[in-house]
Structure formats: C-alpha cells, structure tokens
C-alpha cells in the first residue's frame, strides 16, 4: 500500500467503523428516492437533459429485463410456403404466365426518354432563382443590377480562373467553394472523404450544372482511387458518380451516396 493511502491503512490496522456497513446500505437505499426527487425538481435545460438520459437508461433496462424473462420454451415452427407452390387440386395443370416481355434495351430507352434514373433521391425540392442568386448592385450610383452572387455551395475545377471582375455576371464566393465530399458506399456502409472531379447534373436546370452549383440531389463525380475498385476487364476505376443527400450550405459539408 503506498504511503499516502491513509484511509486504507487505518482500515487495515483498526478495521471499519462499527456502523459502516449499515450506513452504506441505507445510503444506497436512499439513492432511489433522491433520484426521483431531482427528476421531479430539475427545471429548464437541466431537466430536459436529465429526462433524456433517464429515458435511455429506462429503455435499456426494459430490454435487459425482457431478455432475462425469455424462457427456453418450445414453440410451433411455421413451414414457409415455396414460391410457385401449387395446391394439390391444381397439380396437373401447366402454369402459364401471361406477361408482356420487353427487352432490356427498350426499357432503357423508355427510361432515358422519361428522364428518370435509378438514384437514391429521385425527387428533390426545386430551388427558386431568388433563393439561389443574390442581386449585387454595381456602378457609380449602384443602379446596375446585372451581377448575381451565388448563395449555394459550388464546385469549381482546379484550373479555374474567373473572368475579369468587370465582366463576370455570376460570382462564386471562395468561402462557398468545396473540393471534397463525404461519400458513403451503400453496401459497405462506410464513409470516405473523397475529392470531387466535377458536377455531372444539377436537377434544377442545365444553367446550374454549368455553373457548378451543388445542391441536394446533384449528381457529382468523385475520385474513388482510394477504394481500389477494379473493372472485370482489369482496369482500375478511378471516377464514379455519387448523389448529394444533404443541403451543403446549411451543414458546411457535402454528404453523398455512391451510385453503384
């Protein structure tokens, strides 16, 4: 025992107090009442936090209790019915399915015409122009209003140089330019921080695609060389599409889901 452990040393030499164990037991029994008192009296944010914590604890307790109560009793086992199982009185008939068979190519063509793709977010809320652009007044008397500043997150490529300030109509502020995205692989369920290569399509219109605006639902192309994917032919895949799943201007980061 180290030199500073006075309590333990005293206990070793003289033993516990005569009422030590009784006091301890009673104190622990009183804890329950004290806790309920604080739960009822706590107000404001403290009360809310305590209630949340307590709720989680209670839920956990219920689960453990249910687990303990599971008894090893025997139950009836249901046999699953096979697909295509036929009742006894139809056994002799041939099953014919009448369906229109369409070839894959026709299906693809139809999809393309409709403009519907197999993406995680098929529909997004449209973004109005006045939400997207902020009008900037210029000129000596501040009467010209042809400049616009983009208020959403944008992506500009690496070799991007802007037009001379006198002539640029759309201002993409540096603070809102992002180069990386947090991309989740839907099957592996893990997220990687990958570099963006470009904006493929913005659902709000071709103008936004050309400007490089990244909003919710935009398809972006990301550099997946980190993942080490390989085509069946043996070539290394280094770029894949992903769809943005959050509002980057509200969260400060781009979260996307990889399109496999």
């Amino acid at each position, binding site marked *: 025992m*180290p030199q*500073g452990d006075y309590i333990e040393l005293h206990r070793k030499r003289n033993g516990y107090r005569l009422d030590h164990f009784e006091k301890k037991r009673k104190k622990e029994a009183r804890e329950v009442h004290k806790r309920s008192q604080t739960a009822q009296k706590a107000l404001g944010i403290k009360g809310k936090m305590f209630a949340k914590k307590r709720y989680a604890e209670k839920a956990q307790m219920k689960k453990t209790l249910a687990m303990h109560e599971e008894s090893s009793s025997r139950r009836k086992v249901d046999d699953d019915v096979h697909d295509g199982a036929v009742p006894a009185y139809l056994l002799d008939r041939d099953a014919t399915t009448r369906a229109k068979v369409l070839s894959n190519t026709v299906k693809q063509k139809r999809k393309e015409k409709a403009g519907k793709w197999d993406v995680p977010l098929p529909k997004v809320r449209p973004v109005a122009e006045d939400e997207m652009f902020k009008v900037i007044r210029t000129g000596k008397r501040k009467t010209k209003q042809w400049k616009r500043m983009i208020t959403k997150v944008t992506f500009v490529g690496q070799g991007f140089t802007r037009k001379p300030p006198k002539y640029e109509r759309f201002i993409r502020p540096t603070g809102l330019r992002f180069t990386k995205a947090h991309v989740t692989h839907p099957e592996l369920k893990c997220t990687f921080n990958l570099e963006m290569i470009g904006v493929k399509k913005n659902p709000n219109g071709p103008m936004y695609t050309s400007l490089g605006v990244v909003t919710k639902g935009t398809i972006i192309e990301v550099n997946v060389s980190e993942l080490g994917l390989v085509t069946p032919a043996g070539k290394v895949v280094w770029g894949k599409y992903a769809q943005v799943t959050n509002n980057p201007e509200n969260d400060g*980061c781009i979260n996307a889901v990889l399109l496999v």
Partner: protein
Amino acid sequence: MVQYNFKKITKVPTGKDFVDIVLSRTQRQTPTVVHKGYAINRIRQFYMRKVKFTQTNFHEKLSTIIEEFPRLDDIHPFYGDLLHVLYNKDHYKLALGQINTARNLIGKIAKDYVKLLKYGDSLYRCKALKVAALGRMCTVTKRIGPSLAYLDQIRQHMARLPSIDPNTRTILICGYPNVGKSSFINKITRADVDVQPYAFTTKSLFVGHTDYKYLRYQVIDTPGILDRPFEDRNIIEMCSITALAHLRAAVLFFLDISGSCGYTIAQQSALFHSIKSLFMNKPLIIVCNKTDLQSLEGISEDDKKLVEEMKSEAMKTLIGQGGEPREGAEVLLTMSTLTEEGVIAVKNAACERLLDQRVEVKMKSKKISDCLNRFHVAVPKPRDQKERPPCIPQAVLEAKAKEAEKGKKKLEKDLEEENGGAGVYSASLKKHYLLAHDEWKEDNMPEILDGHNVYDFVDPDILQRLEELEKEEGLLQEQEDDEVEMDVEDLTPQQQKELAEIRKKKSMLIREHRIKKSTAENRPIVPRKFDKDKKFTSERMGRQLSSLGLDPSKAIERVRSKSRGRKRERSTGVDDMNVDDDGSNKKMRLRSLSRSASRSRSRPPTDVVIPGEGFKDSAQKIKAFKLGKKSVQKRNKDARKGEGDRVIPTLKPKHLFSGKRSNGKTTRR
C-alpha cells in the same frame, strides 16, 4: 528548489462530461434570444459568437490539461524514470498528443464554420451551421474520451506518490526483502511503514525525515530487490532501481546475517555484486541487521569471506571519493532493530558520510567562488616577529581558579528539585533584592493607598528631585545672590566699569556665535566674497598656527596653490581680448592649471580590485560600474532627481493641446 507537486493537477473530466460542461457553459454565458426579424448581421454575429465561444472554452480546458501534466523530459530524471516505470512513457505521451491534436482540430472547425457563417442569409441557415459546428467539435471530444479517462487515472496515482525532493540530503535503504529496512526507517523517522513477516510488504517508495546536526535528511525506504537479470525485474523492483540510479544519496545496504529473511548471505552478497555499479560515487555503508539473532563473529568462514569482499568493495568507494582511508568501522556496521542497539550509530555514520561528500562536491563546484568573492578576511600585517599573546589580568585568573575549586554555583533548579520538585517548592523571588536594609526584603508592598496606585508615586530619585524643585523655587538662589552682591560692592568704581565692559563683550560674543551657528548651514562661516576687510588671509592663518606651536608652511602652500591657480586664470582672460594665434596653447595652459582644482577627492583607478569589495576581477568591476551608470542614465535624461521622482514638469504641454492637424479631425487630444 522545486518541490514536485503532482497534487495540483486539476481533475480531467470524462469525454461526456467535458462536452456537457462546455455546452452548458455556452448556453449560460452567451445571449440566447434571436428572432427572424432581426437584421441579418445581427443574426450572423449571434451565431458566430456561439461558435467562437465554444471553441475558446474547449481550447482553454484542453490547454490546462496539456500544461499541467508534467513533461517527462523537463522534470528531474528521477521522476521521469519513476513515471516511465509506473505508467509507460509512450502511452503517456500518446495520450497527451491526442489531446493536442483534438485541440487543433477544434480550432480548425471553428475557423471554417465562422467563415461559412458570413454567407448565411437566413436565420435557419445560420442556426443550422452553428449546430453543425458545435456537433463536430463535440464528436472530436467524444473520440478522445478513452485518453481522458487514462489521464485521469494517472493523475490520481501521481497525486499519491510520496513527495521526494531529489536535490536534498537523502539516505537510501536497499537490500533483499524482509531484511529489516522498514523497521529501521520506523525507528529513526516518524514514517509508519507496514512491517510484516512476508516478503514484499513494502510495494512502493516510502519517505521519512530525520534530523542530524540541525539539518534535515530524508530517508527513503525501497521495496526489496531480488537477484534477477535486469530485464526480468517487475515494476516494484524497478522503482527501487530507479531511486538508486538517479538520487544522489548515501546508500545503506542491508544484510541479514541470521538468514531469517529466507535468503542466505551468499544470495545477498550475489545481489550486492550485481547492483554494485549503481553505488558509484555514493557513500556506501553495509549494515548487518538482526544481530540479536546471530552476531557478526558467529557466522561461518565462507560467509565471513563474502562479507569481507563486500566490505572491500565498499572501501573502494570510500577511497574513490578522495577521503582518507579511515578505519573500516565506518563502512561495515552492525545493529539490531529489535533491541535498538547500533541504530543511532548507523544513522549518524550515514549522515556524516553524506554530509562530507556533499560539502566536498560543493567546494569543488564553480558556484562557491561567487560566495568566496564576497568574503575578505582582513588580517593585520605583522609588524615584527614579537609574539603578542592575549593579556589576562592576574586578578581574573585568581578568581577563576577560586571559582573552579569552589565548584558549580547552585542553581535555582537544583534547589527546586531538592525541596520537592516543581509543584511543591516555590522559589522566593525577592531574596536577591538590593535594598538599603536587608529586613525590608520580605515586606509586603501595598499596591493601593488612599485611593491612589502606589506605583504611580514610586520614584528612586525622589530625594534628588525634591532638591531640584527647591532650587527652582529660588530658595537656594537667594543664598547665591547674596554672595554675588557682596562681591560687586567690594570692587572700586573703575573695576566695576571694567567688569561691566567684560560682561558686555562676553554677551556680544555669545550672541554673535549663536547667529553664526544658526546661519552657517554647513558652509564655511565666512565666504570669501563677504570678507571685505580681508581679515581671513593666509598670513593670519600662518600667524595663528605658529602661535599654537605648529608648522604652518605646508598649510599655506596648499592654500596658495589653489589661490594661485585662480589668479592666473584672471590674467590670461585679459590677454584674450587681443586675437592671438597661439590660442590653443593658452587653452592647454588653462586646462592644466585648472586641473589642480578639479580633483576634489583622490580615488584609485576603476581597474584595481580591492579584496573585500566583492568583485572577481577587474573586468567584472568595470562592467558593474558601467551597468550602474547605464541604469541611471535614463533617469538623468528625464531630469529626475531620483527613482521616486514622479514630477511632471508641465501637465498640459502646449504642443499637445493646441494647433490644427494637417489631415483628420481634432476631436481627440
């Protein structure tokens, strides 16, 4: 002398608690209300403030953790090693490094989100950004949760380490388990170490303090060491090895000659030889304990040989220190903690050896010369070879001899003891009173008489005072006056006139002197410019000195040289009216003549070092003078009288309070 106080480290909160503390702080100490209708700048500022505030708090708390935990490279190597043995240096550094990275990450997050907040154009957007920022900071903190828990554990353990000062006088006790180390320390200090019959009762270092020759020594008890190769040692043994390796202490190696610890003398001597490299430069004493069970002479021949071997090793360290090889008794001692014989002797020997070694080292070090420079024992130079022993008068010698044969004076204490002790006998304090009559000694003196305190009226000189009082009242004066009047009547009128004249002159002289004394003010009483009559000339001084019987020539010369210089100056001034070519020559003459007057005090040149001034050599002295002058320079430039002179000559100098400005407004002055 730094005392390592690991108890001052603040508690490290767990990851969850940390987040709770900082977030609740933010919620309480920043404004909470913001509405949609406010100006967008106001909304932005509101949220930016929250983000910044949270980041500052995180930064502050993480910084205190990083700074309070000691850096293993910066503290004394003994503590560095001890902490490494107990907690593993790498884990410790990793944990602190993680906290540092977390701190930097949180800073970056705050910076990025504050930048983004500048583009927030609605309340919802700003709020969402703030939530994202705080969320990310909290995630970072939750990730370092395990490191925080580890650091808190370490902190609790460190606070319980014994406070060992690695620089002071230390005595280290080492040896096999169960040889009697803890009982020894219990005997000489107040440390209450557990003593049990099983081995490894002591599992960590224990500290006790003891005194010797008015100095405090710390005694460190170590856990027992077994004879094993170095790599196989466990943490407990490593503690003692660390203490042995890093502390400059006197080492007491304990030997159990009775073998009741369970290990033979052969095993113990094997241990000694394996760790003897750790005893380098340390005063070593081999202590044979448990002599009540088995004395040192009674052991077998082989054991005696082993003991002699150990003793010779210890003697080697003694000689290596440079001390004269004293008797071997100083190196090998026997004692028994049970019967307490020899315990004090061992302690004294160890303290003595340690003190000698430390003094020796200090004398050889560089710092001692700083102290020695300040001392200068001035010994008068012997004029001749005559011996001059102290002179004691004969009467004193005789008195001393008489007293010696008379014996010791009887003290009051002895008297008290004779007559029954402290509670029974009370000394009569009045028996040495000096009074006119001896019978008055035992009298009770009243304290209050007629309503007055007697002590207010007690005065030993009361009769003398009475006389003076009577004198003042003029009773004696009358008697004198009668005598004086009689004298005056006896004189003739001419003598009376002369007497009156003499008295007048005397009173005038007294008055004059009084005036002179009050107006002189440390100046020469008659400045030369007021001496219009030219009464005070050098001839008059010469005449007065010769009338006294002294030789005036030297004094006159000295005075003449000063005055001569002045006279010359005046004459050359007249010639300067004509324009001369050898003006430079005249200037040189001027300077050489006036120089005799300019040396007011004779001082030795600044290079010469007088012993006793406190300077090492002349270079140091010159530097000291330069530093002194430099420190005064700035003050003199400001025309200040001294350090405390805070006078501002002009409170509102004109150039600051008036005039127009070439550009800008003049609203501030």
